[in-house]
Structure formats: C-alpha cells, structure tokens
C-alpha cells in the first residue's frame, strides 16, 4: 500500500511539472494555432538560469530561502525574455505563412537553442544543488512523500489558481480569450493582438521556467537535452487533455504523470518514455480531440 501511495505522489508531482510546461503549449496553440516546438528549450533555459544563479548565490553564502526566490525569479525573467524574443524572430514573420513553414521554423529554433546552450555551457550532466530542504514536519511520511514532491504540488497548485484568476477576471485575460476565439474579430474591437500574443508567450515561458527549476532541483541534474523529452511529454499531456484547453492541459498532465509512474513502478522502468509516446499515439487514434477538447470542424 505504501508503494502504491509513493507511486501515486510521484505520479502527481510528475504530472504537476508536465502541467506547468503543457500550459505553455496549450496557451500558444489556443492563440496562434502553432505548436511551439522551442517550448521545451525554454524550460531547459529556465533550469540552466536558475542553476547558474543558485550556484553563484550559494558561493556568496546567501540563505536558502533567498536562493530559491532569487533563482526562481531569474529563471522566470530570462525564460520569459527568451519566449518573447523567439516569437518575434521565428514566428511573427510567419504568421500568414502556411502552417508547415511555422512548424519547421519552430523545430529549427528548438535545435538552435539546444546547441546554443550546449556550446555556451557544456554537454555534461551538471549536478543541480538541492534547493528544497527536507522539512522536519514531513519526517513521519518522508519514506512515501518527499518534501520536493510536496513543494512541487503546492507551487503548481498556486500557479494554476493564479493563472485561472488571470484568465477569468483580468482585462488581459479577457483579451486573450477573445484573441483565441477569433483573431480578426479581436482586432476589430480594438485588442492589440500582437501584444496579446507576446503576453501569452511570456506567461507560458514563465510557467515553463518555474517547472524547469522545480524539476532540476527534484532530479538533481540538468543537461542541454532535458527540454526535448520534457517538451514532447508535455505536448502529449496537452493533446491528451485537448489542446487549446487550459483545464484539459492540467488534467492530461496528471493522467500522463500517473500513467508513467504506475507503469514504471509495476511494469518496467526501461520503457518509461515508450509508455508516454504509446499513450500519445493511442489518444490520437481514438480521440484526437482529447479529453476536454472541442471537435473543430474545418469549413471551406
């Protein structure tokens, strides 16, 4: 039973991380209808930035809490800037181009960023400092639920609530919803669509950065390649829940996290990634619109 609960929590925290990344995919997709392939790389850059900042602050002897906050803040700022710049360079000029062009451009961007970090930093796995301490009050249940699992769940939940409030009740959230429904119409009622798209990229990238830092601290090592697999898995989660739908992305991520956790726990850990990809193929065969997605009919 303990093993089951352990797997349950590890699946949930896995799902929470996927959700942070998947939200970026789903929001961008909802607004410009593009799969932002470089999103996984933004997550990776977030992890690297927080790694660099955290290491410097540790050397300077800052207290643990300050390190977490400042490293997280740096990760968010830089990832958001990267997201913003990528959109301006690689996607904005292609807004009226065929879908295939934008997709290839996104893949190119992803390859570029991966190799940029590889060349500027290193190709080795870097040991990431453990930012989240083991709490004392978690001691009695520490053998089933780790402190960092708990932190991941709490932080993700708070971020989700914040995002929901932002989208539901603020002016910018309203403008985002309008843009995703009909871009031309949104322009006609006076919404600055370019700004909304930029904001979407910034929010999505910030979420990915938070995810990047939490995962890196949880797993304990980073590498320039982590964005690739994480990106595909988060995309799987977004499709599972119905791409374009925000609650769908969260639901899909949790389902994917649990599936992976139980499959590796009870079946075999060699094929961890194969389970995720197989799940993706299965969903696309049987329910391409996802759990909460809308079926969109194409009209001539």
């Amino acid at each position: 039973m303990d093993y089951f609960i352990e797997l349950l929590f590890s699946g949930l925290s896995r799902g929470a991380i996927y959700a942070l990344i998947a939200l970026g995919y789903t929001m961008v997709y909802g607004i410009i209808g593009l799969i932002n392939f470089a999103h996984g790389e933004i997550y990776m850059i977030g992890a690297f930035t927080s790694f660099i900042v955290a290491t410097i602050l540790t050397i300077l002897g800052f207290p643990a809490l300050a390190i977490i906050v400042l490293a997280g803040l740096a990760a968010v700022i830089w990832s958001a800037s990267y997201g913003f710049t990528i959109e301006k360079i690689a996607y904005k000029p292609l807004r009226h181009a065929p879908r295939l062009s934008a997709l290839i451009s996104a893949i190119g961007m992803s390859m570029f960023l991966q190799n940029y970090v590889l060349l500027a930093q290193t190709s080795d796995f870097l040991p990431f400092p453990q930012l989240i301490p083991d709490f004392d009050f978690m001691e009695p249940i520490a053998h089933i639920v780790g402190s960092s699992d708990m932190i991941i769940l709490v932080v993700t939940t708070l971020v989700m609530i914040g995002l929901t409030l932002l989208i539901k009740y603020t002016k910018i959230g309203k403008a985002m919803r309008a843009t995703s429904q009909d871009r031309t119409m949104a322009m006609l009622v006076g919404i600055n669509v370019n700004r909304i798209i930029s904001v979407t990229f910034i929010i999505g990238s910030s979420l990915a950065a938070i995810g990047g830092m939490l995962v890196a601290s949880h797993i304990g090592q980073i590498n320039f390649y982590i964005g690739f697999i994480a990106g595909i898995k988060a995309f799987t989660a977004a499709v599972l829940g119905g791409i374009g739908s925000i609650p769908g992305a969260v639901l899909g991520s949790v389902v994917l996290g649990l599936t992976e956790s139980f499959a590796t726990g009870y079946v075999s850990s060699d094929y961890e990634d194969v389970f995720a990809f197989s799940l993706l193929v299965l969903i696309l065969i049987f329910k391409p619109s996802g759990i909460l997605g809308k079926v969109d009919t194409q009209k001539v």
Partner: protein
Amino acid sequence: MFTLEEIKRSFLVSVWFVFLTFPIMVIRVDSIEKTVQWRWMNVFWVALGTFVLSFVFRYMMRRKEMKSSDEDEQGDATGRSFLHRWLADPKYRYIVFGSLLAIAIIFPHVFSTYQTSIMTTALMYVVLGLGLNIVVGLAGLLDLGYVAFYAVGAYTYALLHHFFGIGFWVALPAGGLLAALFGILLGIPVLRLRGDYLAIVTLGFGEIIRLVLENWGQFSQGPSGVSNIARPGFFGIEMSLDTALLYIFYLMVIFVIVTIFFVNRLQDSRLGRAWIALREDEIACQAMGIDKMRTKLAAFALGAFWAGIVGVIFAAKTTFISPRSFTFIESAIILSIVVLGGMGSIIGVIFGALILILLPEYLRALSEYRMLAFGAILVCMMVFRPQGIIGSIRRTYTYQNKKKPDTKVS
C-alpha cells in the same frame, strides 16, 4: 540605410541580446568546485554580432516585402531562376548530366579512399533527402521520425545477417519493404490527423523505435549494437577494403541515378499530382475525388521505402550499427537538407545534401557549430526564402499559337 534611427534600433537590439544571453553566454559555474568563470569577451561578441545581424534581418525583411508586392503586380512569370531555364533546355540537360556522371565515375580514382567514403555518405543523404522530399516536399506531411525507417532498414540487414546469414542483395529489398510496411502501419492511425499532430507522432515513433532497439537486448543486442556485418558481395568475389568501398561508391551512384529517375517520374504521375494537390488544399482535393488516405499512405510508404534501402546500404558500408546512429538529430539533418534545397525540388535537394554533408566535413573547425547552423538555417529559410535555394517550379502549360499546344517546363 544607415540612418541614425536605424543605428539606434540596432543598438537597442544588441543591448537586448546582451541581456538575454548574459547568464548562458557569460557565466559558467562549477557547482562542485564552487568556482565561477566570467567570460566578458562574449558580451562584446554578442553585441557586435547582433548589431550587424539586426541590420541584415531588417534589410532581408524589406527585400522580402518588396518582392512580394512586386509579384502581386507581375504575376509569377519571372519566378524562375537561371538554373531552371538552363536545365529546361534538353541540350544543356544532357551535357550537365553527362559531365556529372563522368565526374562520378572518375571521382574515386582521383581522390583518396577517405574522400570517396565521405562522398558515399553524401550520396546516401541525397537519397534520404529525396525520399523525405516525397513525404515533406510533395505531400506536405511533416515527418520528424524519418530516421526510424532508416533504422528499420539498417537493422533488417544487420539482424538477418547476424541470425540467418542472409546476404546484402536479399536484404536490400527486404529492408525497403519492411520499412515501407512500418510506414503504412504508422500511417494508418496518424494520417487522419492534421499536420502538426503528425509531426509530433512521427517524432515519438522515431524515439520509440530507438528506445526499443536500445532496450530489447536479446533481439537487437541493445546499446552495444550489431557488428561484423558483411559488405555487399559481387558474385562471391573476395574484395579488399578499398575495392569494397569503391564498389559501394559505384553502387550508390547507380542508386542515386535510379532514385532521381523514379522520383522525377513519380512527381509527374497521377499520384505525384495528387500529392501536390493534397498539400495545397485537402478539402478541395477530397471534393475532386482523390482518396486522401490512400494517397497519403502511398507517400509515407514510398518515403519509408527509400529510407529502408539506404539503411541497408548504411549497415553494409559501416559494417557496424548501434541505436546511437538513429537519433532525432539524424531526422533533423535530413529535414534541413530538404528545407535548404527547396521542398519538392529534386535538384534543390541534391544540392542541399551535398552542401550540408560535405561542408562540415571539409570545414572541420566549424563542425562543432553544425547543428547550431542547421537550426538557424531552418528558421532563416522559412522566414526569408520558404521555397529553398532552388525552389521547385510548378508545371505550367502555356499556350503557344496552334502548333504546340502544351509545352512542359519542369
């Protein structure tokens, strides 16, 4: 062009990029030794690089805008490049092809074995590029797991040889057919989906194949790979290493010619025209009575077939294969070849393969930056020149008096 306003904008761009690249480019930390390395010189390089590039970017954007407004006025009559007009003339075409063939024949006798080996690799990528061109260029289906079919071909030969001692010439069609079968099996579920889903699913499929090959030890010998694969035989004659490489080179030349012939004929066939139509507008296509699934499956299977065949040749050439040869990077390289050369254009893809494979080989110092450059090429080509360096041109029928009702230009 160099007004104060422009300089100011470029300056701001370079300041922004210095900020952006600061943590990654300038700082390098070692969390075990607890040391920080500051590389301030990189700030200067980033600033200078982005300052110049922002001018180039704006200039290219302006040129692109001017070009598109020109085209609106004049139609697309001037869209053909010099090379196309030149090759359209059959007289020149035979001279060009004849001399290329002559170069190919004397190439191994002039250059060293090493050069020949590199050229063989480049020719393999030409065929891979032409195969992917069917899927991406003609049918407009973005396949990011193309390397999986290549792996299927390579492992078909390696394992058939390892377990049953089957020779190259039997494995060659077997590898191609098995890859095509995999193409169909993957295609049936995913081809109903829209383009971007297809990209991700094929990417996932490529990874699945690689992971299975890596983890299923008894079947594929796992990460250590299969070694001692026989080189292709020639009626049982024993060959030295040099002769064998020469033999593979000539095989590859013949194979490239066959592929070009097939792909060229395919492009103008009923099926080829259906692919192009499908790429342009699926709904209109279905209304015209084209079976969408079957046409797409045919593209997928044919593309996979070429990849499988090249896979068999690859296994025979290197005599050793492991799952590491079949990562996503391979797919990305082949995609870059197709995109750089020009999607749908045969000459373009050949040029693309030769440039992208030979250039990094001869510029060894820059080979580190190869993948970085490939990524940048994909983005820049899409933003500035989506048709590639030598774009494909539509088959057009022009009306010339009454004597020649249709003149084909290809």
